[in-house]
């Protein structure tokens, strides 16, 4: 099945437009749909408290109007989606919810890696953290050949040089840079 967004897999054949946009009715899809519908119900229950509606104010100026439109829309489409799930309940296909949830859990590990990297950059500096992160990830992903480590280190260096040194994107210097000798400190804070 072709995804609408960037994909890395092989393509399957489709003869009609809708063949590209059809999700198999897996139990994972149903769970996902039900959970998001419940979230929409919760948001709807908070409408008065979390988005204000004032007396004597025309509709278009009500602060809560567009929040309400979004939530009512989610409930409207979600309700018919629930009906569709119900009518197709006998045709559930793989993957099952547990198998799919395990993949989501596996991805959660990389969320933690990402957040660890994000948290360390302001402390240990952009260049050392990026190269260190890429080398560690290379090891975690199971690449053992030396060429991958070299490629990872060079990639990290290139990213820092392009974005921080050349494009001057706003990434602060690491706190550890303060301990560098005065001669290189300024350079490290500005460019590395």
């Amino acid at each position, binding site marked *: 099945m072709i995804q609408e*967004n*960037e994909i*890395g897999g092989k393509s399957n054949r489709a003869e009609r437009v809708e063949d590209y946009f059809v999700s198999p009715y897996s139990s994972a899809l149903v769970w996902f749909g039900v959970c998001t519908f419940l979230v929409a119900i919760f948001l709807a229950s908070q409408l008065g408290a979390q988005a204000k509606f004032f007396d004597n104010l025309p509709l278009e100026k009500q602060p809560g109007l567009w929040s309400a439109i979004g939530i009512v829309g989610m409930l409207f489409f979600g309700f018919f989606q629930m009906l569709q799930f119900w009518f197709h309940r006998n045709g559930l296909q793989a993957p099952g919810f547990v198998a799919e949830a395990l993949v989501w859990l596996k991805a959660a590990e990389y969320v933690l890696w990402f957040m660890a990297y994000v948290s360390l950059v302001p402390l240990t500096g952009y260049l050392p953290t990026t190269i260190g992160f890429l080398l560690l990830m290379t090891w975690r992903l199971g690449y053992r050949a030396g060429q991958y480590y070299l490629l990872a280190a060079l990639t990290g260096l290139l990213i820092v040089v392009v974005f921080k040194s050349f494009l001057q994107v706003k990434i602060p210097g690491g706190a550890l840079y303060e301990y560098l000798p005065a001669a290189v400190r300024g350079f490290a804070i500005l460019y590395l």
Partner: protein
Amino acid sequence: MELLLTSLSALARIDVAIALFVGSVGGVIIGAIPGVGPAIAIAILLPATFALEPIVGLTLLLGIYGSSMYGGAIPAILVNAPGTAVNALTTYDGFPMTKRGEAARALSLAFGASFCGGIISIIALMLLSPVLAAVAPMFGSREIFLAALLGMVLVVVTHRGQALAAGALLCLGIFINTIGLESIRYTQRYTFDQPWLASGIDLIVVVLGLFALSQAFLLLVGEDEHNEPPALVGKLFDGLREVLRMPKIFVPSAGFGVVMGMIPGVGEFLAQFFSYSLARKTSGNGENFGKGAPEGLVASEAANNAVPAAAMIPLLALGIPGEALTAMMLAVFYVHNVIPGPQLFANDFDFILSLYLALIVLNVLAFAFLLGTTKWLTQVVRIPNRFLGMVILVLSFVGVFSLRNSIIDCAIAAAFGMFGLMLKRLNLPIVPIILGMVLGGIMEVKFRTSMARVETVFDFIERPVAQVLFGIIVIVLVAHFYSLFRAKNPRT
């Protein structure tokens, strides 16, 4: 003539020339890597372009957008894995040609068709510009509101078979855009008294999460694919000549690309699909489509490369992005306080013309680059997926963190990355969320300003352009429900 010279002088600068070169070459390389694609590259580069002048930043992003379609054909043809989703139909005939030893011919046809599609699209836009400049001022708040509404309707109905999910996700986008402090009564909307939500959820944070981080996670949880590109035997220069001998294929296909690109919410995928279907019927070689028919390859590549230039029309003329990539570009305009819309088209036409000329140069650069480097470029399909995933992770950090140095933004982006991963794994669409956020924001403002001059609901559609837009919305909805009814009751 004076206008043309002014526009040319805007491009004749070293920073613009570098942006043109980096954008076109970078776009080709990014497009050639399966699993990356222009949306991720644009999302990552977006904050970096904020420091550049609008013309520099936009040519860089346009270069990536336009030339990635060229590069996307390489893995589609050589290893049956489209570099971008819009090259999916290229695999139908491109890969069978590779299997029978015609990889170089297939690539040269794809590059030639892409080039023709791109140039036809830009010429069409230049010819249409006087009309657009005349029509754009007719769009007031009501008309822009209705055009945005039409975009939303089209986003939902074009996701055939997934319209309910697309609708729900579009509304989720509208809701997300409302979070934070609103500007009328300065009340908080859905912040749950959390100070970090008071300034709302930034579009770029959501874009980077949904497009870039989700793709990184998707690649990291998957397996490495061992793609081995075949050796290219033969010349790459002959394709353009062969394409030019097929005007009945590439001209209508490029026409589809232009029309579909101009319609908000439709985009290159449907352009490619319809042009492929038409070419199958009209080429006289329909029985070989899907088995390596050059006409099929030309149709799909000419169509998808005609879209980027056309997609700029609703953005520049009305300030309404038709799909996710132009929605991201809208952010560049806003950051520089350049408001796209009727006024820009009417008053700064030299800026618009500069962008068109930049697009021509981009197409020439991308085409020339491919002719010279394709034999080397094919090696990028060998980069392991998971290695690519970790690189995208690091690049995504630059995009999110450089916005306002906020770790909370990174956490929000990571949460959207997980959400995007789930959507991608379940084959649910992501684009409606982004369009919901952008179009929802536009509609909120335009609804408020237009209602000040409206007494009854009918006043909303009293002007001719508003009537036309309203009529199109009604027709699209009626046609959608009719097609659903026909699908359920094929004999009636």
